[in-house]
């Protein structure tokens, strides 16, 4: 449950008369519970890919399906974590997390249980009745992740979720996400600019070309991660010290470099 399939997806935005071609023939299959990261230069269309799975955009041609069914609109089966959190400022942490559950018409007791679980999972218990503006960026993003997780979605869509956080908080959140992914795995589509982040978090990494975005390369991380047993390391800096990690990172970085016009020879 939670497989994603992009089938010959093209996307043209009609913002100018000629139209802007954002995606060019995207074909990608993501298996259930697989963690796939998409990296690519700015404007390459990686966020557009996520938005189509989320149901916020429609492909111009081709189709995107989840569990074999074409995506027709947003929904709690494909929960989204946004770069700038998108928390409702007039609701408390609890209120933000609860909205999705109320929409599912769950009984009050059940909601309470699930919320308590989510607060515990994301270390937010002492902040349950705070308002978003009273929290740091890292905590706000934890609320956003809790809000998504509590829905028990088949697919988790994360659009540069750590991009608005400072470097140290970002690293902490990456470690937390890995911990979460082990405890409670599900299909994840993760968009990022950061190659290190992608290699650290993902099972596979898709490298996109610059606009119009095409998938240039798929890199299998999981095989290497398992072979080299990165999981033995608790801390991210120990993983990043591994030769295998560095090799992967450099390979992807070089691939991305080719996409910058000034570096083409």
């Amino acid at each position, binding site marked *: 449950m939670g497989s994603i399939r992009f089938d010959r997806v093209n996307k043209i935005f009609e913002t100018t008369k000629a139209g802007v071609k954002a995606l060019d023939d995207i074909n990608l299959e993501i298996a259930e519970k697989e963690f796939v990261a998409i990296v690519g230069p700015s404007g390459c269309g990686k966020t557009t890919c996520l938005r189509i799975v989320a149901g916020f955009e429609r492909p111009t041609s081709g189709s995107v399906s989840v569990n074999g069914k074409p995506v027709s609109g947003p929904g709690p089966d494909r929960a989204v974590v946004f770069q700038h959190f998108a928390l409702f400022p007039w609701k408390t942490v609890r209120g933000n997390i609860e909205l999705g559950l109320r929409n599912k018409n769950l009984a009050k007791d059940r909601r309470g249980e699930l919320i308590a679980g989510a607060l515990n999972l994301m270390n937010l218990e002492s902040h349950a009745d705070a*308002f978003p503006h009273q929290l740091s960026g890292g905590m706000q993003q934890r609320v956003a992740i809790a809000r998504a997780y509590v829905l028990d979605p088949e697919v988790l869509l994360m659009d540069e979720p750590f991009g608005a956080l400072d470097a140290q908080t970002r690293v902490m959140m990456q470690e937390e996400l890995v911990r979460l992914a082990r405890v409670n795995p599900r299909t994840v589509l993760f968009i990022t600019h950061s190659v290190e982040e992608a290699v650290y978090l993902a099972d596979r990494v898709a490298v996109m070309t610059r606009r119009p975005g095409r998938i240039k390369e798929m890199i299998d991380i999981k095989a290497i991660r398992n072979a080299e047993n990165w999981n033995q390391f608790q801390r991210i800096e120990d993983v990043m010290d591994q030769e295998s990690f560095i090799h992967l990172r450099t390979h992807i970085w070089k691939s991305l470099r080719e996409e910058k016009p000034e570096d083409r020879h």
Partner: protein
Amino acid sequence: MSLAAAVGIPLGLLMGWFRLLDDVVSPIFEGLRFIAPIAWVPFAALWFGTGIGGPVMIIFAGAFPPCLINAYRGARFVDPHLIEASQMLGTGHLRTILEVLLPASVPSIVAGLRVAAGLGWQSLVGAELIVAAAGVGFMMVQAQANVSTPTVMAGMIAIGIAGMLIDVLLRQGEAAILRRRGLQA
């Protein structure tokens, strides 16, 4: 004025959310909006006589447009990411309007209420100057007929102070709401 708010705010929010409603209602609204409230006086007098209906209609004519417009603007200009988050969470139309659009539009709505209060108040006094048997406006017209300048001045000052008090109350309400949300120190 409560009537203007009670009708204007929900209608504005609905028009902001349901584009189709907007397309139907807007032309009618725009057509009527530019009739100055004072110009409604003869109509009101004919329809309501000297009862309470007349002043109510005049105030409504003045207060309704800002309530509607500001609620509409508030709804249309909500941060699209909040709308998307709400959709992702599976929120239905009514809940979206009540729990997302409405709270997000509060600053705009309150601004509209302040303008509406001002316009409604002005319209009422203006109407009283023309067609009334009581009230401050009536008192001033009488005073004018009797060439009693101090009374006229007193009337104007009273009007100004009353209007200002209404505005101060609304502003405090607005500040309290914004403080709760942390949008204002």
